[in-house]
């Protein structure tokens, strides 16, 4: 028994040994979230393309999501191996800045164009998505036409949302309601509560409930239907267009102050917003590109909801009020 387990431990250890780093070759370490680096994500393709031009090795370290990414950087502080952090979003930027771990990118980002014209000299947007209610056209014939519609509509048509304490889309909906309702947000939540079938810890659980048919609506992104249209050739799942606007999530990348090779980091960020990399993102990360793409987007992207109005609360304001707003949400949602 003991001999056996030792062999397995050794085998396991061998399997986990990270890629051996050759001394003469430059290495760039990018911390990102797990779905970016997965086999279906943009990671592998971005790595291959970038390594063609840089004579370097690109290493991805994938953590659960943008929040875990920031936590990891805070934990590691100045000793972090990371040269680049890729995958923070607009509601985290203020907190990220407060860590003092980042430095201006030096990248010419004039090509970058995201709704609401967000721009920053440190955090470079590489893609974005508008939050949206995705519905199953087989069950829902009259989808809500605005957030107000969703809040006040038929409570028997349920929606699955995510917990703002544990998930970024969950926080997104919280901010969305805040942006539309302001001080009246608690009343809105109290009404919406009856329509909420359940609140899941992350996006995956609620989206799983949705595609299994358990719930006819789910909070996700306007780009979600593109996945189903491109990969599954079905237009069964659609986004509801809201006349009072959609809250936006902009994903950004930034250079860390103690990056080993600043020039390499800069050339990666420049590459990230170049047409070659931007062309990879839409059909792998299922988000909208932040700049021009090398190849035109698949037709499915033309059919997506194009929000008439983009909502965004400044990240300073989010950082200042997040806990208070979450408490407000908890109180409203816990009421019997």
């Amino acid at each position, binding site marked *: *028994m*003991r001999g*056996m*387990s030792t062999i*397995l*431990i050794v*085998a*396991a250890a061998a*399997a*986990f040994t*990270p890629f051996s780093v050759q001394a003469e070759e430059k290495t760039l370490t990018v911390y990102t979230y*797990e*779905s970016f680096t*997965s*086999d*279906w*994500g943009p990671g592998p393709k971005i790595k291959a393309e970038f390594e063609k031009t840089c004579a370097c090795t690109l290493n*991805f*370290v*994938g*953590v*659960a999501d943008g929040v*875990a990414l920031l936590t990891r950087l*805070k*934990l590691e502080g100045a*000793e972090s*191996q990371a040269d680049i952090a890729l995958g923070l979003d607009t509601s985290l930027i203020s907190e990220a800045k407060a860590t003092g771990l980042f430095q201006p990118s030096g990248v010419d980002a004039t090509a970058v164009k995201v709704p609401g014209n967000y721009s920053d000299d440190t955090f470079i947007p590489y893609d974005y998505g508008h939050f949206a209610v995705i519905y199953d056209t087989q069950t829902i014939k009259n989808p809500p036409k605005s957030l107000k519609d969703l809040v006040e509509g038929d409570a*028997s048509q*349920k929606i699955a949302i995510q*917990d703002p*304490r*544990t998930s970024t889309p969950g926080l997104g909906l919280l901010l969305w309601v805040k942006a539309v309702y302001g001080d009246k947000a608690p009343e809105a939540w109290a009404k919406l*509560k009856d329509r*909420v*079938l*359940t*609140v*899941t*810890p992350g*996006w*995956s*659980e609620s*989206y*799983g*409930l949705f595609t*299994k*048919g*358990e719930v006819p609506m789910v909070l996700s992104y306007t780009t*979600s239907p593109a996945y*189903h249209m491109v*990969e599954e050739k079905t237009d069964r799942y659609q986004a509801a267009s809201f006349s009072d606007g959609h809250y936006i999530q902009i994903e950004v990348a930034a250079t860390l102050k103690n990056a080993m090779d600043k020039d390499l980091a800069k050339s990666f960020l420049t590459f990230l917003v170049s047409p070659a990399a931007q062309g990879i993102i839409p059909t792998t990360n*299922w988000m909208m590109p932040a700049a021009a793409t090398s190849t035109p987007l698949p037709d499915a992207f033309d059919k997506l909801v194009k929000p008439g109005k983009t909502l965004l609360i400044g990240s300073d304001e989010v950082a200042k009020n997040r*806990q208070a707003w979450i*408490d407000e*949400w*908890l109180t409203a*949602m*816990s*009421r*019997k």
Partner: protein
Amino acid sequence: MLTLAERRRGIGAGLTVLIAVILFVGTAVVTLLAWDGDQSASRLFTAYTWSILRFTLLQAALSTLLSILFAIPVALALARRPGFPGRVWIVRLMALPMGLPALVGALGLLGVWGRQGVLNGWLTAAGLEQPVSVYGLSGILLAHTFFNIPLAVRLLLAVLERLPAEYWLLSASLGMKPFSIFRFVEWPALARVVPGVAGLIFMLCATSFTLVLVLGGGPAATTLEVAIYQALRFDFDPPRAIALAFLQITVTAAVVGLVTLLPAATDMVRTAGRSIQRLDGRSGPSRLWDFFVIAAAVIFVASPLLSVLAAGLRADLWKLVTGPRFIQAATTSLAIAVTAGTIAVTASLAILNARQAIRDRRDPNLAERLLSTSLAGTSSLVLVIPPIILGTGWFLVLRQFGNVGDFAPYLVAIINALMALPFAVRVLEPALEDHRRQTARLAAALGIGGIDKWRLVDIPVLLRPILTALSFAMALSLGDLGAVALFGSSDLVTLPWLVYSSLSSYRTNDADGLALILGVVCLFLTILGTAGRKEHNNV
């Protein structure tokens, strides 16, 4: 009747395990507390904290009560019917839910009990307009009973099956009625372990996370574990996280302590070890009742699993198994599970031996009694220490020594071993006690000790419970997403991680397929855990 050297060795090993556990947990907590971060801005405990504490305890108590209440008749029926058709598979079925990641179990349950599930399908066909909703406390109880009734059945059945053959001969010759048999034979045996099993289930339910969030329907139904998770992950506020964890541990310890204080522990007589034949329960109504009880349990446990199976079969399994990451994930998962299982079983044996060695003394001194109690407490309370605290704390420790990704698999294995420790102890304790009672004097009289005793006396009898404990621990480790997943590197890919990764890339079908594969692996493990059972029945 141990020799002095044996007793010393036993106590020494137990003490080593205790110190190792305390150091492992303590290092994580101290490192987190010493982390030089922002001051905790929010108040530690708010009115909301108290309301979730209340809910945590309420749902855990109800879940435990229901699980035990339903498990007892099932275990009794299975014990009464050694020849029940497919019995060994029914016992194996009872081990399956444990190996499933919580989310997979939840989706399986919803396939049966959900708004679009089989039951609501029938109800709608019968003319009901709105589907019956399980979300809320009822959903949480449903999920917890689904995961814990099978657990309780297995642990209780193991005890009933070890009752000496003489009991059944005697009760038959006395012409005892079923109720008398329950009162004088079965219940005293069950009463020995029910408090421990109840404590275990209570701790599992009190720290439940995904199930409570997915099926609870909203933040009114939530546990302290969620608040701890938020405090560390979103706010990165270690003092608050640890304060909440202390609250969770103290309250759970108090409840579990109360439960285990209930009078129990009746000693059993020695037996000649003759093969067991049940002579009771021959009447028609008794057969009918047992059939009904067993069938109901099988349907309750199997239906969500069938829903997982049906969903999994829709996936392209061949493509999944031959996919690039699968082999890596499966190897990693198995290596971690074997390591965790081995550590858990070894540590449990050390703990139980030490407690036995202490009990063996005529009057143990205060230090020894304290050690025995600490061992008992440690071996169950490790379950309520939030893995995210251990993971984050050890992350901080290990990053000073190099790439955390290199340590991650060992860390996951140790954390899994700690989580499995209470299960392994519960499985091994009754078997070990019976065995010592039956062999200790004889072995001492014959002067057998050391390796020979292990080889000749212990292994032949204890192999089966050890395998069962190992398969329990391995199944638990296989289904765990891994605390380090939060800080994981792309090099550490396990099967549950692959399930979540598929889900978070819209690949619901792949996730279903992988969940099915995970279930099949667990089935193999339980076959390992129940090996030798059949041979025993044929004797």
